């Protein structure tokens, strides 16, 4: 479980995150949603420690990240896997080397075991026979899958995904959502997904935190998001004309 308490962050005098708290449960797909520019990615970067919040705590299974010693922070980071918006694969390495990278740097596993683990993870995300390809030679959807394989290769306990569907066609988006959901349940990990894709939200959101202008306006599950009475969330959900017409008809 990850607990965030009163996270605040400002950039050049502008407060981007205004005291957000929440709990992301283990074995569930937790989603942070909201319109573009509302502070979702900054909040995610605060949670993983890429950005230091001005105030607040991020607690990973009882360990307060920002108030811990460097060794504990490093230990927590080694339990984190992250899928970045563009995949963030290392351009100079093959797919195999990219996925193997966390094992190379963070473990003392023998080479043959590392290769077995890499092949297992690539197979798990539906990729085979791509080991020798470079990131520039594979599609956007494949890059995301490789990114997921790299995020789980070290048996991560926490998986963070920053807009996993951005730049993907609807079918590939669904496949990536399904994959994230399956991996979360299968390995009982705490997954936090930042998204503004309503398909993902209603399909996968076991816990949803809605952000609006740096504030948390609503939290709940995919089952009760459509019955919410928050006008900003209503506007966000029904921004799509088709959904709006359907709602009006209903």
């Amino acid at each position: 479980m990850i607990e965030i308490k009163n996270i605040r962050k400002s950039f050049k005098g502008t407060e981007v995150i205004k005291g957000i708290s929440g709990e992301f449960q283990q074995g569930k797909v937790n989603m942070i949603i909201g319109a573009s520019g509302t502070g979702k990615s900054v909040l995610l970067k605060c949670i993983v420690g890429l950005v230091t919040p001005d105030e607040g705590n991020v607690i990973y299974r009882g360990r307060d990240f920002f108030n811990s010693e460097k060794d504990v922070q490093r230990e927590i980071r080694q339990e984190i896997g992250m899928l970045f918006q563009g995949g963030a694969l290392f351009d100079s390495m093959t797919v195999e080397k990219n996925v193997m990278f966390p094992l190379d740097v963070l473990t003392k596993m023998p080479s043959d075991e590392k290769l077995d683990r890499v092949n297992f993870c690539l197979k798990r995300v539906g990729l085979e026979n791509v080991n020798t390809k470079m990131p520039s030679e594979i599609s956007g959807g494949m890059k995301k899958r490789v990114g997921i394989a790299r995020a789980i290769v070290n048996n991560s306990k926490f998986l963070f995904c920053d807009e996993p569907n951005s730049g993907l066609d609807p079918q590939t988006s669904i496949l990536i959502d399904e994959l994230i959901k399956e991996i979360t349940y299968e390995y009982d990990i705490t997954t936090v997904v930042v998204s503004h894709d309503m398909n993902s939200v209603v399909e996968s959101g076991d816990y949803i935190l809605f952000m609006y202008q740096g504030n948390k306006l609503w939290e709940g599950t995919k089952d009760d998001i459509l019955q919410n009475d928050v006008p900003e969330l209503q506007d966000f959900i029904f921004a799509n004309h088709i959904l709006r017409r359907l709602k009006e008809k209903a």
Partner: protein
Amino acid sequence: MKSIGKYFILLGSLFKNRESFKTYFKLTINECVLIGVNSIIIVVIVSTFMGAVTAVQTAYNLVSPLIPNNVIGLIVRDMTVLELAPTIMAIVFAGKVGSNIAGELGTMRITEQIDALEVMGINGASYLILPKILASVFMYPLLVIMAAFLSITGGYLAGIMTNIITEQEYIYGIRLDFNEYTVTFALIKSVVFAFLVSSISAYKGFFTRGGALEVGLASTSAVTNSVIAILLADYLLAQLLL
């Protein structure tokens, strides 16, 4: 001032939260190939022509019959060892290697590859920058030695082929009043310049923000700042060590 402070903080962070020696060794060897071996062709071309042009232009300026021809060899040698090989090659090095380092790190920054390293608990600065600095400091002096040798050879070839000097005169000239300390001085300069080019370029690339345009600007800025730093350091070292 803020940038200078940030530069020194970055240099300090290279030695914090480091990876294993084995990891750095492997990365440094890779960088030695990229930084050193891949620069050999440009060094060969530039240094050979640099020596040849120095020989021809020195001969052109020697109008007095009282000055012996062997002075051409002496001037080519001293100019090469003291200035052309370490300093001019450093400017070429900044253009080739400096822009490459800044471009590579800048691209890694804007595509979140550095964030990916840091999320894994790896010190991105140390992992990416330290091997580049070590490789530069190790390889650039070797390139300078090669450049000095080729420049003097270029002067010899140009002098002999254009009949402005005889082989004996040139050999005599390059051996005349030779001060070994100039070589030591050139090597000290080469280590300092290599450190400046690699660290300044890495700093510019590592803190790139924005997109492709900013990566281009970071590369340009890396080269111009490196060149200014080289010239300043060149003057300071000359004052201090000669």
